């Protein structure tokens, strides 16, 4: 039997995540004193009161399925939270769906809205799963580049330049993983105008929105007339340090949420009730923890960006997220040689930017969700690496 005959062509054709190779490389160095700036999650463990709420839910025997859309108490809390923090109103009864992380919400949206051959625009560099999610739903993904000179903000001009007839959806992730780039209200207004002109539905992934350090975050869904053409995707992983709980949600016009619910009910059925109970606690009483963690990330960002620039790695100050995305070409190395050499020579793991799309070439992603002490040592090592002769650095 030839196994490969059984793998669907569109799955076989999908490239493996570039992050995977690097993960293997780092995994081989187990036991050595590696400082990893390669993660994509908070270093904080979920605040205790949230964990305790989950324990309590188990003690009370909450072990059942919930409504497909999620616990109504949680949907009410989500509706209130989104209204307070983003200024958008959604009815908890039929405009909110609780999902297994934003990843599931994104997949639901792709499968619910994309016909084979539909075109979906997304900005790049970006989170590794955007393009594959589109391809898995038999759509065509169109990358829209963002540039270091714009601090990786998406511009309406770039959108217009990349647009093709048949484009139906636009995926946004602001602030962005891996660049930390985001858009000002004015930039978003221009993007919104473009979406209205081209009749695009917007999937806006707001997972890093609470981790905005400079200015206030604006969601495109909050702009006049945009709620009706936006699916607002959000979750608890980053701001509430709840990555492993796998809990997120989508809000939008009732008929669209209903279509996503169809896919959800036949695939996932519902998100874990324990994670839903924990998420409810997070929304009701977790805001102080979010602010405390944000303050830590903010100072760490200032530290790492300052050090990178001092070292000679040009780095814009990300307005949000917990990623710095310095340019490494000044060292004479490309992003892959830089990351491999840095890992081998100085035992610091960063992710080569090309893993996030072609636009990430020449950059590496360094996650600053780690302690001050570790960050300082990591910066010292990177400084030593950059100062070493090129021949030394290339020894991978």
């Amino acid at each position, binding site marked *: 039997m030839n196994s490969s005959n059984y793998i669907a062509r569109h799955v076989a054709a999908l490239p493996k995540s570039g992050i995977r190779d690097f993960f293997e490389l*780092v995994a081989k160095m187990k036991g050595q004193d590696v400082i*990893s700036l390669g*993660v994509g999650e908070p270093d904080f*463990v979920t605040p205790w009161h949230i964990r305790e709420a989950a324990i309590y839910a188990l003690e009370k025997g909450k072990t059942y399925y919930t409504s497909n859309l999620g616990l109504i108490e949680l949907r009410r809390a989500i509706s209130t939270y989104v209204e307070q923090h983003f200024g958008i109103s959604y009815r908890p009864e039929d405009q909110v769906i609780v999902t297994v992380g934003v990843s599931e919400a994104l997949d639901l949206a792709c499968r619910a809205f994309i016909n084979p051959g539909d075109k979906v625009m997304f900005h790049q560099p970006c989170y590794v799963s955007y393009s594959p999610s589109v391809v898995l739903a038999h759509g065509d993904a169109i990358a829209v580049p963002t540039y270091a000179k714009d601090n990786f903000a998406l511009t309406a001009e770039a959108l217009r330049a990349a647009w093709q007839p048949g484009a139906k959806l636009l995926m946004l992730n602001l602030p962005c*993983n891996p660049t930390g780039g985001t858009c000002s209200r004015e930039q978003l207004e221009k993007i919104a105008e473009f979406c209205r002109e081209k009749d695009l539905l917007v999937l806006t992934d707001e997972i890093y929105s609470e981790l905005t350090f400079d200015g206030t975050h604006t969601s495109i869904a909050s702009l006049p007339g945009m709620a009706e053409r936006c699916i607002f995707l959000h979750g608890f992983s980053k701001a509430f340090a709840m990555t492993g709980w796998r809990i997120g949600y989508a809000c939008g016009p009732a008929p669209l949420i209903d279509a996503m619910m169809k896919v959800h009910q036949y695939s996932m059925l519902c998100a874990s009730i324990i994670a839903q109970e924990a998420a409810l606690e997070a929304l009701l009483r977790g805001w102080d923890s979010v602010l405390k963690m944000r303050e830590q990330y903010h*100072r760490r960002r200032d*530290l790492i960006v*300052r050090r990178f620039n001092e070292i000679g790695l040009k780095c814009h100050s990300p307005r949000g997220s917990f990623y710095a995305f310095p340019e490494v070409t000044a060292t004479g190395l490309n992003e892959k040689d830089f990351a491999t050499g840095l890992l081998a020579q100085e035992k610091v793991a960063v992710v080569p930017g090309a893993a996030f799309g072609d636009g990430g070439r020449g950059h590496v992603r360094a996650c600053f969700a780690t302690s*001050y*002490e570790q960050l300082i040592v990591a910066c010292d090592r990177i400084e030593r690496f950059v100062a070493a002769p090129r021949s030394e650095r290339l020894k991978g």
Partner: protein
Amino acid sequence: MNPVLKLLLEGGSLTTAQMAQVAGLSVAQVEQHLEQLKKDKIFLGWHPVLDLSREAAAAAAVRAVIEVKVTPERGGGFNRLAERIARFDEVESCYLMSGGFDLLVFVRQPSLQKVAAFVSERLSTIEGVLSTSTHFMLRCYKEQGFLLDGGDAPSTRLNVAP
């Protein structure tokens, strides 16, 4: 708030050089801030937070909390007596409390006998002290924000993740 004070209050154990990097200051500036805080009598001194159940640190490990009732005085209220009690070396902390007693006194001594001697010979014999009620601490679970033993398991975060 003074940036150095803010870092101190977070309870980490950064060196002045590390504090300088985190706060975006020079080492000299951090030291200057520390000096100023001392001068202003805001920052009174360093005190390590120890797990006293560990053998190495167990030398002075008998701790007790004493509830003290006193007679307030015309003019000074509780202050004169509270300050008098607080001056004893045996006393780590001393607070005026609302509720069923007046002063809450924390003491730490090398042995139970020494605590007993302090209470019976020094504290309760002070004029104005009406009664004392001594509670010995049996085990510490959390000390000034630090969990002892029962904290979270070491992180098993993946080294590289999307």
